[in-house]
């Protein structure tokens, strides 16, 4: 019975991987071998991945980005000492994904010797390509490589006193291009000029951590000191001469720019926690981070002035910013009886950001000043939550949450001849919300939960911030033998009413998902549907108001009706043959419009809005679908041959220029030993 249940669980896991990419082939349970006092399992899948794209190659690379080549699609090694007394290690495990050129590579390594050390390593490499349609005329792009490393070493794990050491590295590099309007404080150059760069991205982040974790007097205490170093030495090259697709603007004659940004953020974490006899618990934490970044910007631009004559602009900015942030929270848990659980968490966060920049610009005349900015945020919150279970199949939950936030800001500018400084102004904002829910298990395997929350904020920061909001969620799930079914409904509503321009947002989502595995495990089906709906209405400043129009406001309506469908089937008609079929569809029907319309004289950068001269109607109907199929043939007990294909089709209703059709396939051998 246990084995059968395990088989069904494994198949449920395999079939529910439907939304993954076609390769690697989902895991088969690896064979276990004994050698040298260790239990070992090992498998790897090597194959060739290929792709073909029709349509917009950039859009494909920005969202899918698989290429051609031989890959170690997946590899896995696990070694565990049979008696927990290995010589150098008791556990050694390694997993790799996409090695050899896939745009998404992931490597995980763990080594542990009981009570002596535990080492975890994560290595990731992501090829991040970005040349996306929402940016004006595609005048920005990035073809970069991101490398992430995380090393965690815990010495003396499981003992009363443990030592923690950690290192993280986050590096981003690669070519790109970039355009921007000309910042023109001296008003010397024509605003029709714009700057174009070819960039060599060089960003790097290194974080070092050291700490201790110890237990004393029934308390568990953790203290960690860390320092995070950041440097951005991106190089900018003049891209003025490159061909451009833009209109109504002109590239500058020449442009040189350097802008290194460096900084350190040391931070300290102290945490104390205890739980006594399942009656009362305390968890406290305090983090203090104090860091800064310094930057230098040096730029020379030659371009046309407003009269069409050549002119030059030199800019130097020396920036220095610091942030001090202290955060503490204390959670008290009361468990007066097995039926009750009450928690209160009170948290305080205080952030102060101070910046100073010395600005010098030379053009038709000299412009020189020093700017000071201050932003302070103090945030106190308290949340009390209680749950009560009168009978084993039913429980209720209630919560009250309150937060008060004080935001303060001050700006100052010092010119050679005079100073300007604003008062310390700010905004106080209180938010309170209450909610509750029920959880009901009417029969074994069936669970129902309903939650609701209502909240009010008195002075929200922005029109889109939460003001009068209510949220409702309902879930039902049923699980029995090889069947699993779940469904949900969510409603998120926020109203931010003010004079002239109300903001309202209603987000609804609903869906269901079902999985069925036949008793013998040879057939398995999985499928679901989800609707994600968002309607917002906002008063926006109308920058296209007709001349003489008294009202500067227009309304902007955004409507998204996003339907997603996924389905997969895993069939094993023969003990050596496994077929896998899957399909996913995401389709936004927008507001139902079949085309956009623009008032006379308006030229659109986006295929996604209509403007009738008074109101904006924004929707972005599109479809994105992806069928896939895979065949696995078990050649020998430890060797399988796999062949798979996946199609990606992306279409926008209002334009065809961004669409693409791509096919990604692979063939591989998976060997376990």
């Amino acid at each position, binding site marked *: 019975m246990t084995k059968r249940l395990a088989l069904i669980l494994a198949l449920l896991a395999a079939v529910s991987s439907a939304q993954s990419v076609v390769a690697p082939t989902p895991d088969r349970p690896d064979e276990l071998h004994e050698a040298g006092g260790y239990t070992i399992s090992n498998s790897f899948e090597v194959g060739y991945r290929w792709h073909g794209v029709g349509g917009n190659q950039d859009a494909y690379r920005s969202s899918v980005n698989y290429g051609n080549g031989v890959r170690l699609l997946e590899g896995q090694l696990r070694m565990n000492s049979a008696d927990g007394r290995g010589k150098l290690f008791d556990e050694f495990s390694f997993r790799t994904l996409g090695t050899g050129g896939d745009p998404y590579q992931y490597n995980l390594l763990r080594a542990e010797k009981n009570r002596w050390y535990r080492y975890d390593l994560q290595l990731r490499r992501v090829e991040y390509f970005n040349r996306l349609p929402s940016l004006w005329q595609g005048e920005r792009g990035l073809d970069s490589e991101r490398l992430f490393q995380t090393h965690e070493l815990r010495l003396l794990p499981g003992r009363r006193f443990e030592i923690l050491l950690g290192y993280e590295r986050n590096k981003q590099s690669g070519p790109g291009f970039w355009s921007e309007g000309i910042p023109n404080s001296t008003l010397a150059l024509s605003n029709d000029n714009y700057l174009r760069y070819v960039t060599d991205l060089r960003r790097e982040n290194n974080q070092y951590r050291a700490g201790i974790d110890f237990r004393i007097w029934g308390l568990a205490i953790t203290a960690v000191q860390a320092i*995070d170093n950041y440097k951005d030495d991106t190089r900018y090259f003049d891209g003025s001469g490159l061909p451009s697709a833009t209109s109504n603007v002109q590239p500058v004659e020449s442009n040189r720019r350097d802008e290194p940004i460096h900084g350190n953020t040391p931070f300290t974490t102290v945490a104390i926690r205890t739980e006594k006899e399942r009656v009362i618990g305390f968890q406290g934490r305090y983090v203090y981070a104090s860091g800064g970044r310094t930057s230098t910007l040096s730029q020379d631009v030659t371009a046309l002035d407003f009269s069409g004559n050549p002119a030059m602009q030199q800019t130097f900015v020396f920036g220095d910013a610091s942030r001090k942030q202290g955060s503490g929270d204390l959670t008290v848990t009361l468990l007066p009886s097995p039926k009750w659980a009450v928690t209160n968490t009170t948290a305080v966060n205080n952030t102060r950001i101070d910046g100073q920049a010395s600005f010098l610009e030379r053009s038709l005349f000299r412009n020189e000043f020093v700017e000071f900015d201050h932003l302070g945020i103090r945030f106190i919150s308290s949340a009390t939550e209680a749950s009560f279970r009168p009978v084993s199949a039913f429980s209720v939950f209630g919560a009250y949450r309150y937060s008060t936030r004080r935001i303060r800001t001050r700006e100052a500018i010092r010119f050679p001849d005079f100073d300007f400084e604003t008062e310390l102004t700010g905004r106080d904002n209180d938010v309170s919300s209450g909610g509750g829910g029920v959880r009901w298990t009417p029969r074994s395997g069936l669970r129902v939960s309903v939650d609701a929350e209502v909240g009010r904020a008195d002075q929200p920061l922005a029109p889109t911030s939460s003001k009068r909001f209510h949220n409702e969620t309902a879930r039902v799930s049923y699980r029995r033998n090889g069947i699993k079914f779940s469904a949900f409904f969510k409603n998120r509503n926020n109203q931010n009413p003010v004079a002239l321009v109300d903001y309202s947002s209603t987000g609804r989502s609903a869906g269901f998902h079902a999985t069925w595995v036949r008793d013998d495990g040879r057939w398995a089906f999985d499928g679901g549907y989800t609707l994600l709906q968002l309607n917002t209405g906002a008063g926006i400043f109308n920058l296209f108001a007709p001349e003489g129009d008294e009202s500067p406001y227009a309304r902007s309506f955004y409507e998204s009706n996003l339907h997603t469908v996924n389905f997969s089937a895993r069939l094993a008609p023969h003990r050596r043959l496994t077929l896998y079929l899957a399909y996913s569809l995401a389709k936004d029907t927008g507001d139902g419009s079949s085309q956009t319309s623009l008032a006379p004289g308006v030229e659109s950068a*986006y295929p*996604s809005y209509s403007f009738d001269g008074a109101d904006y109607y924004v929707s972005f109907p599109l479809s994105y679908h992806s069928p896939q199929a895979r065949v696995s043939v078990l050649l020998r007990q430890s060797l399988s041959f796999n062949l798979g294909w996946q199609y990606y089709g992306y279409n926008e209703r209002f334009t065809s220029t961004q669409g693409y059709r791509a096919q990604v396939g692979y063939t591989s051998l998976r060997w376990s030993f």
Partner: protein
Amino acid sequence: MAANAQEAEQEYLGSEACQVCHPDVWQGFPRNPHFRSVALETETPEKTGCEGCHGPGGLHVAGLGDKTKIRAFGELQPSETLDACLTCHSKDFGKMQIRRSSHSTGEVACTSCHSIHSAPEIGPLLAKQEREVCYSCHLEVRARFDLPFKHRVNEGAVECSDCHNPHGAPTATWGAAHSPRMVSQALGNDIACVKCHSDKRGPFVHEHPPVRVEGCTACHNPHGSTNARLLARPAVFTMCLECHNDVAGFGLAGGGIPAPNSGFHNLAEPRFQNCVVCHSRIHGSNADRLFRR
């Protein structure tokens, strides 16, 4: 006789007794992190081996496998399962907030995600691949990762736990009382996004306040979007102008969030419809208070 039964109920028999009837469970146990307690032979009986979790097995054995005489997790309520697991794990740093996490208040038991005896994955005994565990309940999130623009979770490059702590996170330092409570914090107390997007972390000489106050989700849908760069709206200017509309009652001083100069920003021209063409350092700038460089 009653005294003997009572004694048997209290008796710890050791894991060897369990192997007799549950050899399949024991076979894979050396690969289980919980096996450490057995291997070390230093823990007291109530903290080691099978009985460390399932309780003393004396009466269970005496009853020839009577499931009511032992802690059978399949029969427990979620809160009882949580209590049992926290016997040892309550002092884990990463589980400090588990009592108040959305999963605990939602009565999601530890065993909903973790398979203690037959976890197929390397790592924390998850019943399935991490994303599949999360997707099984969070259907709307699963749907978002099927959209054209998303973090590469399905591709295996990003995991849910890179941004979330499923055992509960400390109170967010951004947002407000109803803020997300399962989002991890980078550098101890910063929003999770800057863990990878470190160029957006700052501090900047000129901060864009909503980034600090409300968080990245003010403009982005981090799980997935139909819009490039995970933006919340397909047309950038409509998103910016929803806040920058000069309406009194909002903004840092309550005088309204400044609207663009209508004489200069001619929305009829494409270049003004994408605000970040000029305001290119919209997350914060060290050189220009209007985020233009």
